[in-house]
Each structure stands twice: as structure tokens, then as C-alpha cells.
């Protein structure tokens, strides 16, 4: 349980720091780079290396490549829809979320399993 609490605190702090950096930067497209900052990954991998070892962390990082490809498609899709259709950002991002899961787990089934 304590391990989960530590992960929560470290992950929350890492995400907040990168998000704050993104908030103060302009132009928007440059600030957007921080939306794909490795915040959750840094927190997780640092804790994983210390608790489970480097090989375990390397396996997580290999899967993360697939997750990043899914992120690229997800963010591109969100950007494309928001520029062309009159839907709110919240609605578009939430509706596009299943695409991230489909691409990430689809690629996992094809490439990693």
C-alpha cells in the first residue's frame, strides 16, 4: 500500500511540474510538447529500477515505445478534429481516448505478445 501511495505522490508531482512548465511557455504548439513529457514514465521507471531492477524497467520501456506511437496518433487525431469540427476539447479528447487503447493494445497484440 505504501508503495502505491509513493507512486501516487511522485507521479502527481512529476506530472504537475511538466504541466507548469508547459503553462508558462508560448507559443501554444511549443507548450504542447510538454503535454507529451515523460512525467509518468520518469516517476514509474525510477521507482521500478529501485524496487524490481533494471531489466524489469527495460521491459516497461520497450512497451512504452508502443504507447508513444499510440499517443502520437491520438494527439494528431485530436488536433485534426478540433481544427475542423465544432466539438469541445473535453468531448474530443475523451471520445478519442478509446483510440489510444485500441492502438496501444492492438500493437501490443501484434508486436509484443
Amino acid at each position: 500500500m505504501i508503495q502505491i501511495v509513493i507512486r501516487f505522490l511522485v507521479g502527481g508531482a512529476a506530472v504537475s511540474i511538466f504541466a507548469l512548465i508547459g503553462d508558462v511557455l508560448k507559443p501554444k504548439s511549443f507548450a504542447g510538447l510538454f503535454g507529451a513529457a515523460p512525467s509518468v514514465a520518469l516517476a514509474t521507471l525510477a521507482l521500478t529500477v529501485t524496487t524490481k531492477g533494471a531489466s524489469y524497467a527495460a521491459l516497461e520501456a520497450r512497451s512504452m515505445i508502443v504507447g508513444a506511437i499510440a499517443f502520437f496518433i491520438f494527439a494528431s487525431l485530436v488536433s485534426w478534429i478540433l481544427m475542423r469540427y465544432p466539438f469541445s476539447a473535453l468531448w474530443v479528447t475523451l471520445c478519442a481516448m478509446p483510440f489510444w487503447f485500441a492502438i496501444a493494445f492492438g500493437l501490443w497484440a501484434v508486436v509484443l505478445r
Partner: protein
Amino acid sequence: MKTAVRMNVSALRDSTWSQFALRFLFGGIVTAIAGLVAQHYGPVIAGLLLAFPAIFPASATLIEKHEKQEKEKNGMNGSVRGRQAASVDAAGSAMGSLGLLTFAAIIWQFVPAHSAAVVLSAATIVWALVSVVVWQIRKRARIVRTHATSRAHHL
């Protein structure tokens, strides 16, 4: 074309504490879930979540709202501008995800045989470099396209 990178610390005043707390919460929850998934399903599945767009909906909504409020202060309808700002931010995140991919590849290749602290630090620097280079390339490509289009209009 206004594309120089600059810092505007006063932009933080536009956000409320609840918005900061929300992002902390989402980030913490996804990191905790990644740990739980690793325990139950192993590192291969858990690793996917390390590139999950956890705070993306919250950030996009925030940007849309701020931009909309700015326009409405001037008596204009800011809905379209708000969506455009969120779209541009998402395009930036797509570019950043290429850096994220490089970050993951570096850790995968180097963490088993080298100091974890050094590899994590180096991978973060490479994430930033790749993201900025991709952003620069796209910016230049857009400038070239804009010039070509305006020249074509003059012909």
C-alpha cells in the same frame, strides 16, 4: 509570423488551485495504476501506460477555456479560437510524443547495463532535444508553405 519561444510566468495566474490539483490527481492516479497493473499483469502491459495521455483532457479543456475567456473579454465569441488553441496544443503534443518514443527506446536499450540515474537523465534530455527539433522542422516547413502559397496568389 510570431513563433519565437518565450516564457510568460503571469499565465499561471489564469489557473486555479483546483486545476493544479486535478492534474496532480490524474498524474498520481495513472502512476499508481501503472504500478498496480505491473503487479497483476507484468511489465509488458504496464509499460503501455507510461505513455498514456493522462492529463490530456484536463490540459486541452484548460487551454480552450482560457483562450475563450480572453476573446470574450474583448466582446467576441471565443469558441472557435478556444478550439483552435487546443488543436495547436495537441499538435505540439503529437510532436512531443516522438521525443517520448526516443526516451523509451533509450531506456530500453541502456538501462540494463548502465547507471539508471544517468540513463533516465540522458533520456529526458534527448526527449527535450528531439521534441524541440521536430517542432523546429515543422515550424520551418509551415513558413516555407506559407511563403509558397502567398507567392502563388501573387502570380
